[in-house]
């Protein structure tokens, strides 16, 4: 089970539809300050079910919708999709690849889809249970936060070990 691709459309600075194919091994993402690299990381946390806007640098969830520039109007919806290879059927869905999507509208309404069928957020959580996907505390390491595990109080560090156990 591996990541095949993900798509961003209207998510933060990705006003235009953008698809990123992911090969095996190591993929580097490069570019100047402020061009959108960390926004890609935020989009992955978000499509996997992030519930708190502040964990992806927003105040309200709607802040993640492209909010316009001097030249472009804001958009009214943001969508992120992640496509995961499922040829070994580890995910409990009967397709070779599974596409999970999340959308949010300006009024705060959210939609979730698995292979284009509307589902609830908890169906996505159930899909990924025990796969290691979605438990982003050690599969997504955010900018500037690598040594957070060392600064956290001893009592608060358990979560990392409990997730692995």
């Amino acid at each position, binding site marked *: *089970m*591996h*990541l095949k691709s993900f798509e961003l459309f209207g998510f*933060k*600075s*990705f006003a*235009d539809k*953008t698809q*990123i194919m*992911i*090969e*095996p*091994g*190591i*993929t*580097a*993402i*490069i*570019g*100047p300050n*402020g*061009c*959108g*690299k*960390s*926004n*890609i*990381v935020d989009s*992955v946390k978000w499509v996997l079910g992030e519930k708190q806007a502040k964990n992806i640098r927003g105040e309200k969830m709607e802040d993640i919708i492209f909010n*316009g*520039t*001097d*030249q*472009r109007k804001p958009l009214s919806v943001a969508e992120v999709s992640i496509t*995961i290879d499922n040829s070994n059927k580890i995910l409990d869905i009967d397709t070779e690849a599974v596409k999970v999507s999340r959308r949010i509208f300006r009024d705060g309404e959210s939609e979730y889809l698995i292979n284009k069928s509307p589902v609830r957020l908890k169906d996505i959580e159930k899909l990924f249970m025990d*796969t*290691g*996907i979605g438990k982003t505390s*050690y*599969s*997504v*390491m955010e*900018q*500037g936060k*690598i*040594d*957070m*595990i*060392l*600064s956290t109080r*001893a*009592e*608060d*560090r*358990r979560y990392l*070990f*409990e*997730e*692995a*156990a």
Partner: protein
Amino acid sequence: SIEIFTETFHIIRKNFSEIFKKLFQGGDASIELTDEENILESGIEIIAMPPGKKPKNINILSGGERTLTAIALLFATYMVRPSPFCFLDEIDAALDEENIGRFLRMLEQFAKSTQFIIITHNKKTISIAESIYGITMEEPGVSKIVSYRMEKSEGKAVLTS
């Protein structure tokens, strides 16, 4: 349950010590329960000693030493519960060139079974990637992606689209 947590804890501790020694080429590291009597609620202490040093606590380590220690703990946890993919955002920022090299050699081992997507400004890190995406903002405020292929023979990145 207590058994599963304790067993996982011991495996992670063993992994952490081995990986730390590789990344620091020496020294020692461990994780300890702050309250052995109360395993289900105990906090977890991190002890890290780079070669020759005897730091009283983890806060007096340098920025780069802390990053490398955190990476060791991350990889130690990975060996127990690998994720199919992992996103690392500029985790090499505080590392000097030599430590980046040691980190990358270890990353290449883990990348045999996990997809790593790593955001970086560092040339050494970029040079070990199999695929490279460049993000640009030709139009202010709007992200656009271009992909490069690494011409490994020439050590140069060649724009493919």
